[in-house]
């Protein structure tokens, strides 16, 4: 216990909503995703290309430049000067070759096929390639950028975005930061989407203070300011690290920058207090939202009910079911599971069981987390009969067991002298791949060891 169950964990931070304005950039400026290279050699390019509007997918399998040139020459007369097609050719070759060879191929392509004029997206293929190539410094990236500049494509926002993304994905955060600063000096500062992407990656690996340092530097040296999304990412990061003091400071900063916290920010702060089981603060955030006129959403209520249940205030949490109904929101399995969790903490497993019936009556079907919470609760409340019944339902529905409930259930069975049934549960856990064999077995082993000791002391049957 004390951990946020997976069903709840996924909900409070709606990451997709943070990405909503990213789509625009990505779609318009980044070339189509590269065709995956085939495993088998595709030796004979299809000959019927000119007649059909659909262009053949060619993939290069050999890193040899001369082979690639020959293949391109064989295609050159049969294909129109379609930009996308050429980009995909280059992309395909770049996945198997070195950066220099890919650059040479591009040069060869423009020479032998004058109708084809490479644009931004073509050079971005090379740029991506240079970002992914292992390199102790940024030499390759710089070289590509210089090439782009001489060909008439000075770095712009899209270039920045492509480079930063590729560097981050290649795990070269240090270089991404360096490059962003360089771009800023060249009057091509990252747009908010790129900036937020970088911040998100920094948050994953760096300490809070070093991220703050980066943001301060960007603000002071290059006038790149964090926006509301940046703040949301930052606050989420510190809340996940249970650093609510820093979250409060960031909330203040956010206000100073002229932003008003929205629903997502409040949800995240609320989640932070949930992690610390501070029920009063969770309620305080809710009240604050109401005061500020921010409409709570489903995530807010789920977080609120989870937090209150976790800090032992199930009764209050239950009242919010009514509030949700008034708002026209219908509680989902996450809401109910949180409540059941709270009830089980109070050893009120039969109440939780009633809630299961209520929820099913309302047409909301329980998920595996619900079942595991209940199983754990029933065992702790010494309602073994009910627990075995529930286990039967779980087994019939192929519901996986979680480590915690598995251990509790096994221990309760053994304590009541039902070792054979415990072995059967062990078999189910292994068969259904709920747990790794090793974990399932070591749990069983340590429980049996404990049982032996308990028997010697006359504590168990």
């Amino acid at each position, binding site marked *: 216990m004390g951990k946020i169950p997976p069903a709840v964990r996924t909900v409070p931070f709606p990451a997709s909503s943070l990405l909503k304005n990213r789509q625009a950039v990505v779609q318009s400026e980044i070339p189509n995703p590269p065709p995956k290279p085939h495993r088998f050699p595709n030796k004979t390019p299809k000959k019927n290309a000119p007649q059909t509007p659909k262009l053949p997918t060619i993939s290069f399998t050999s890193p040899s430049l001369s082979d690639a040139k020959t293949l391109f020459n064989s295609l050159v007369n049969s294909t129109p000067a379609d930009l996308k097609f050429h980009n995909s050719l280059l992309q395909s070759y770049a996945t198997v070759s070195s950066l220099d060879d890919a650059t040479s191929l591009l040069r060869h392509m423009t020479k032998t096929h004058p109708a084809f004029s490479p644009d931004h997206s073509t050079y971005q293929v090379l740029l991506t390639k240079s970002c992914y190539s292992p390199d102790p410094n940024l030499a390759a990236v710089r070289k590509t950028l210089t090439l782009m500049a001489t060909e008439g494509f000075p770095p712009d926002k899209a270039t920045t975005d492509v480079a930063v993304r590729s560097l981050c994905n290649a795990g070269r955060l240090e270089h991404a930061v360096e490059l962003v600063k360089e771009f800023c000096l060249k009057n091509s500062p990252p747009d908010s989407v790129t900036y937020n992407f970088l911040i998100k990656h920094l948050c994953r690996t760096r300490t809070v203070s070093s991220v703050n340092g980066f943001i301060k530097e960007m603000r002071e040296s290059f006038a790149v300011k964090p926006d509301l999304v940046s703040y949301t990412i930052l606050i989420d990061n510190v809340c996940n690290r249970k650093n609510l003091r820093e979250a409060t400071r960031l909330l203040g900063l956010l206000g100073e920058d002229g932003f008003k916290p929205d629903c997502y920010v409040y949800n995240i702060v609320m989640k932070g207090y949930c992690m610390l089981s501070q029920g009063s603060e969770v309620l305080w955030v809710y009240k604050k939202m109401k005061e500020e006129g921010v409409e709570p959403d489903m995530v807010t209520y789920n977080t609120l009910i989870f937090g209150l249940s976790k800090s032992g205030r199930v009764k209050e949490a239950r009242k919010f079911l009514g509030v949700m109904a008034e708002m026209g929101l219908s509680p989902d399995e996450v809401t109910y599971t949180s409540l059941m969790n709270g009830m089980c903490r109070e050893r009120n497993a039969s109440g939780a069981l009633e809630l299961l019936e209520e929820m099913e009556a309302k047409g909301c079907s329980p998920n595996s987390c619900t079942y595991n919470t209940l199983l754990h609760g029933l065992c702790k409340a010494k309602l073994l009969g009910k627990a075995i019944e529930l286990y039967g339902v779980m087994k019939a529905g192929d519901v996986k067991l979680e480590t915690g409930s598995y251990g509790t259930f096994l221990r309760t069975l053994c304590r009541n002298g039902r070792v054979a049934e415990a072995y059967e549960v062990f078999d189910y856990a292994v068969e259904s791949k709920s747990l790794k064999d090793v974990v399932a*077995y070591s749990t069983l082993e340590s429980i049996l060891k404990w049982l032996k000791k308990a028997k010697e002391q006359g504590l168990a049957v």
Partner: protein
Amino acid sequence: MLPRMKKAITENPKKLSNLIDLVNLPSTLRDFLGQSQISRLGCFMRVWSYIKANNLQDPNNKNVVNCDDKLRSILLGKPQVELAELPTLIKLHFPKEPK
């Protein structure tokens, strides 16, 4: 009271290797399993599935296993063992390596 659930075994490399490393088997086990190397986990699984396959659990008390000759040879020659002591008995074949 109850022992707190220990940290997942996967986080403890020593215990993990104790469980899944292949070990050269003594002749008795070799005859039973038909192979010369197995891990402690694998051995337990094989013995347990042998018990299930041959219906060796006592019909009146499922917690007890009535050993057949083959099984008896690897479980200290006991005619009857409790399921609860099965892991301990199997562990006897996998002594700690002296270091």
